[in-house]
């Protein structure tokens, strides 16, 4: 499968454990996504919050570069990136005048043929029925709370993926791996997003609700496909425990961690040892 890879700033920054996990896991499935050259930041929250045109231009440049470099499909493992890329593609699709304007801003033509995929969609492309036979260690002890976060399924007219109210694509993967995903209430509730530094109280409050609900529903870990959510739930879990005087100790796995473990990779290979909240022994 020829797949472009758009890491985004997080996966090359302090969430590089996600990249490690992703490369190991997809590599085991014989998928080697190729990082596009000279990619730039998608703009994340700051661009769409402060400058509408920039929030289209920055992702559009990446779409165009990937097309230029001969790709038809592109994996963007961070849902903020994938959502912004899809939004830019959609807006330019709907407005030819906008496409022309942005193309001249970014100095390269974006034709709109490139397909942007999130991580779950890549697994679906590979085919769950083809991954299942490769499972070496069914995760029978795992009772994950599948956490989608905000931008995998919203806004639905942009990302057009799964059901924004009752998503099930991650649970389907978990079930295939032999795990027992729990039914819980906070699957698509916000963790606080990029407010980690700027408004810590929001992140602590919102992420605490998520961890509490997961635990209440019998989960022994969470699985996520977003590096920002991972930071808020994993790196900040200690601060949450301190602030709310409660112990969670819930490991936060990337989706590729869990798939990788089931395929027989080790925690070290997947970078799980680099998480803040330790796996239980």
């Amino acid at each position, binding site marked *: 499968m020829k797949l472009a890879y758009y890491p985004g700033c997080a996966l090359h920054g302090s969430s590089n454990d996600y990249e490690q996990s992703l490369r190991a896991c997809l590599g085991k499935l014989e998928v080697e996504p190729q990082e596009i050259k*000279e990619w730039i930041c998608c*703009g994340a929250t*700051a661009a769409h919050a402060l*400058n509408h045109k*920039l929030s289209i231009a920055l992702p559009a440049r990446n779409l165009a570069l990937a097309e230029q470099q001969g790709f038809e499909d592109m994996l963007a493992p961070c849902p903020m990136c994938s959502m912004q890329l899809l939004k830019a593609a959609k807006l330019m699709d709907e407005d030819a005048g906008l496409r022309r304007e942005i193309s001249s801003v970014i100095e390269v033509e974006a034709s709109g043929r490139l397909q942007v995929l999130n991580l779950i969609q890549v697994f679906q492309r590979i085919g769950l029925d083809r991954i299942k036979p490769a499972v070496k260690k069914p995760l029978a002890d795992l009772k994950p709370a599948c956490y989608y976060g905000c931008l995998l399924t*919203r806004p639905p007219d942009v990302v057009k993926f799964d059901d924004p109210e009752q998503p099930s694509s991650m649970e389907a993967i978990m079930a295939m791996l032999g795990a027992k995903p729990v039914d819980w209430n906070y699957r698509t509730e916000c963790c606080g997003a990029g407010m980690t530094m700027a408004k810590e109280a929001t992140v602590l409050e*919102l992420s605490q609700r998520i961890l509490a609900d997961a635990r209440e529903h019998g989960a022994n870990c969470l699985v996520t496909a977003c590096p920002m959510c991972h930071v808020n739930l994993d790196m900040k879990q200690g601060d949450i425990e301190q602030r709310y005087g409660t112990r969670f100790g819930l490991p936060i796995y990337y989706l590729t961690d869990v798939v990788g473990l089931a395929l027989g990779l080790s925690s070290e290979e997947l970078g799980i040892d680099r998480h*803040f909240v330790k796996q239980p022994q």
Partner: protein
Amino acid sequence: MALGPYGSRHPRPLVSLSPVRTITIGSRVVFSTACCLALAFATPTETTVPVELPAPENASCNVLTKILAPTHWTDCYQCGKCTAGCPVAAAVDMTPNQVVRALQLGNFEIAMASDTIWACVSCQTCSTRCPQSVDCAGIMDALREVSLERGLASPAQKTVVAFQQAFLNNIRRNGRLDEIELIAEFKLRALPSERNLGFLFKDASLAPQLQMRRKLHLRGEKVKDRPIVRRIFERCGDGKHG
């Protein structure tokens, strides 16, 4: 003196502005009814709805309504579903539907001066569930953009504003995020509003923890062709309009 969203218009102090809290009924505590009532009664301003179209010099509202056009803000019939689903609605001065209402009444500046637009986490729940297809999240974006440009951003939200601006500057310079540089610029920008040195060093303990996990990058990645990034930023007005 606590200045509420109307603070810029009316210098007299309002009822102390603790954030509006959720009313919960059931086994959870019902609280802050008094606060809500106080706010409901202490309506400090009378809105005079403009009869004529605003003069062209009032660029703020014209620019704003132009950016707002794709959000269908005029279709909002104030059902409150956005407020009901907003994860931070209990902790803001104006609920999301009240922000839209302010726009509908022509109180553009009140909306732009609210804390709400900076407390918003852009989770898109509001836009997803709105029965009138109003892009409430897009309204928040538009208000943020124009409020900064017009210097109307709520003073209480300087820290959040500082973060977003530091982020954009970082991308402009490097093409990709340099985390250490970001934190440094953010801390320095926000220091005057935070007004305590502890703020500067608050997240410093993270550094060794990140280092241990090979997550700390002292030197961020930089894009080779940085001038193109700068040109893109310039062509997008660098955040300024007209």
